């Protein structure tokens, strides 16, 4: 705890004004949070009143013309693409983080670190453009036919190779969340006391054994937090997914098939939604997305903080 800056505080009008305005700004963050909840609840009320909350969540028909709104295809698409992203991105980014902190010489570390930063700084619409022009044709012409040939008996990899669909969206998400997971993991690994690593090495462990027995068990919780942060980003990512998922409000078992996600239907239909029910239903989807990402991001932050905080006090 930090003491008050000025021991004779209370007398100075300037201090009170300064502290008051600072508190106002700080409170502004809480107000923003309140506004998000308020606006989302307010706007989605007409739709929930007409359709019913659970009917809305479980419904799988989305037809704005007939005022029929079900969230299921979007929830499904969001979860499937995020799952693909996690499966692909986690091994790559953890490997990257381990390489950066445990193995690479300083110069390589700086170069790769810079690349990861660049990757994080590219706007998502540019990822979408690249995905549309490079990734989708590649999937359609070679990857999907090959996968279909090898694993076509699994429903996940059956069906015509369309290019646009869950797989394309999931892969672009994997590339986009990679820097998030990698950089938070690096942060977690850096706070680990080096005595643990050195202890393992001194006992004769090879570098990999030191990582497996001393580093990973210690950093596990923080890395889980990193993965959850990445998952949160994957769930909420909008533009790249909108451009690659195919935008069909349907549920398909095949990863090659086109689908839709929560964020992308909001992006696509919000500007053109008229009346109260259609924008209401879209805001309802936003509310679902908000709830899920909020929960994830809160627990991820707690995990990372617990992990790095605990490490710091142990050091």
């Amino acid at each position, binding site marked *: 705890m930090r003491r008050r800056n000025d021991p004779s*505080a209370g007398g100075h009008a300037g201090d009170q004004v300064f502290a008051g305005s600072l508190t106002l700004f700080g409170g502004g963050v809480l107000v923003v949070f309140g506004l998000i909840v308020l606006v989302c609840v307010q706007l989605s009320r007409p739709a929930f009143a007409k359709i019913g909350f659970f009917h809305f969540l479980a419904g799988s028909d989305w037809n704005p013309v007939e005022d029929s709104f079900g969230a299921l295809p979007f929830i499904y698409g969001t979860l499937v693409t995020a799952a693909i992203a996690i499966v692909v991105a986690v091994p790559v980014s953890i490997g990257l983080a381990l390489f950066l902190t445990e193995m690479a010489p300083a110069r390589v570390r700086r170069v790769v670190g810079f690349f990861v930063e660049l990757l994080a700084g590219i706007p998502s619409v540019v990822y979408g453009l690249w995905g549309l022009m490079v990734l989708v044709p590649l999937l359609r012409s070679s990857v999907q036919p090959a996968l279909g040939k090898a694993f076509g008996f699994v429903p996940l990899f059956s069906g015509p190779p369309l290019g646009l669909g869950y797989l394309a969206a999931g892969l672009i998400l994997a590339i986009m969340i990679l820097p998030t997971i990698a950089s938070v993991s690096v942060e977690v690994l850096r706070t680990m006391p080096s005595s643990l690593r050195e202890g393992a090495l001194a006992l004769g462990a090879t570098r990999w054994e030191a990582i497996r027995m001393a580093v990973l068990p210690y950093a596990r919780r923080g890395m889980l937090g990193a993965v959850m942060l990445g998952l949160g980003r994957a769930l909420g990512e909008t533009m790249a997914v909108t451009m690659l998922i195919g935008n069909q409000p349907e549920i398909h078992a095949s990863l090659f098939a086109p689908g839709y996600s929560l964020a992308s239907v909001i992006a696509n239909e919000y500007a053109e939604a008229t009346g109260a029910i259609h924008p209401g239903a879209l805001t309802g989807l936003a509310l679902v997305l908000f709830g899920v990402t909020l929960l994830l991001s809160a627990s991820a932050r707690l995990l990372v903080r617990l992990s790095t905080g605990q490490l710091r006090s142990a050091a």
Partner: protein
Amino acid sequence: MKEQADPMAAEMPRAVARRTPSPYRWRRATNAIMTGLCALMVAIAVVPLISILYLVISRGIGSLSLTFFTHLPAPVGETGGGIGNALVGTLYIVGLACFIGLPFGIGAGVFLAERGDGKLGHAVRFTAEVLSGVPSVIIGVVAYGLVVMPMHRFSAIAGAVALGILMVPTLARSTEEMVRLVPRSLREASLALGVPAWKTSLFVVLRTSLGGLVNAALLSVARAAGETAPLLFTALNNQYWNFRPDQPTASLTVQIYNYAISPYEDWHQKAWGAALCLLLLVGLLSLTARALAGRRQTGPA
């Protein structure tokens, strides 16, 4: 080796103590394989990045010309034209957003650094962290509800409200970090000279961290300039020049999106050009921020 490990059993993970040593050669091979795998992961991660940068530059550079920067988009079916209005629109919307995002973000950050150890401070810090994970499209919905609905029209100001709100949480956190870097002795020296606490905060502490604050602000502006989703249904788009805050306004990102999903080859070409423009803009802001940060690190902090 096992005997040596035992006393450490409480400190070290149990696996170390329990493990029966396997042949050294095998262990070294595993080590080499895993190191190779991690290096492979680095390669896998870097390939898309290089591909993206290479294509944006090589395909985009052909579009860049004076016309491209200064003209309005050509109507469907005609070649030529430019993205002048989108470029100006992005600068306009982001500029407006700064009026909201910068004071609130920096103010909240200073609050966290100066008064952030109480209950309110912890609540604000945690909320800011959580808010930075909220998808930007949801902030767009909020701006729609707050600005577009009451005004009954899409407008630059609605887009600016969305981007401004988006800037606050991350800027608050990075501002706090920057302000906390200021050595405590500086503050104490000022207070010991009898300077009131508020003057100390403003003219000693904040003055010292000014470079860091500019750096944080530039990074958040760069991030805002790259946003698309919250602009789609707030600022919308515009085929023409617009400098009125209450009218729909074009932006680089929305223009890239529209060009990319169109079926026309000429528009794809323009999308790459606009993407190169956007990367240059964002990169320039980040590089400036980086240069400032580099200069700061040579100081005593």
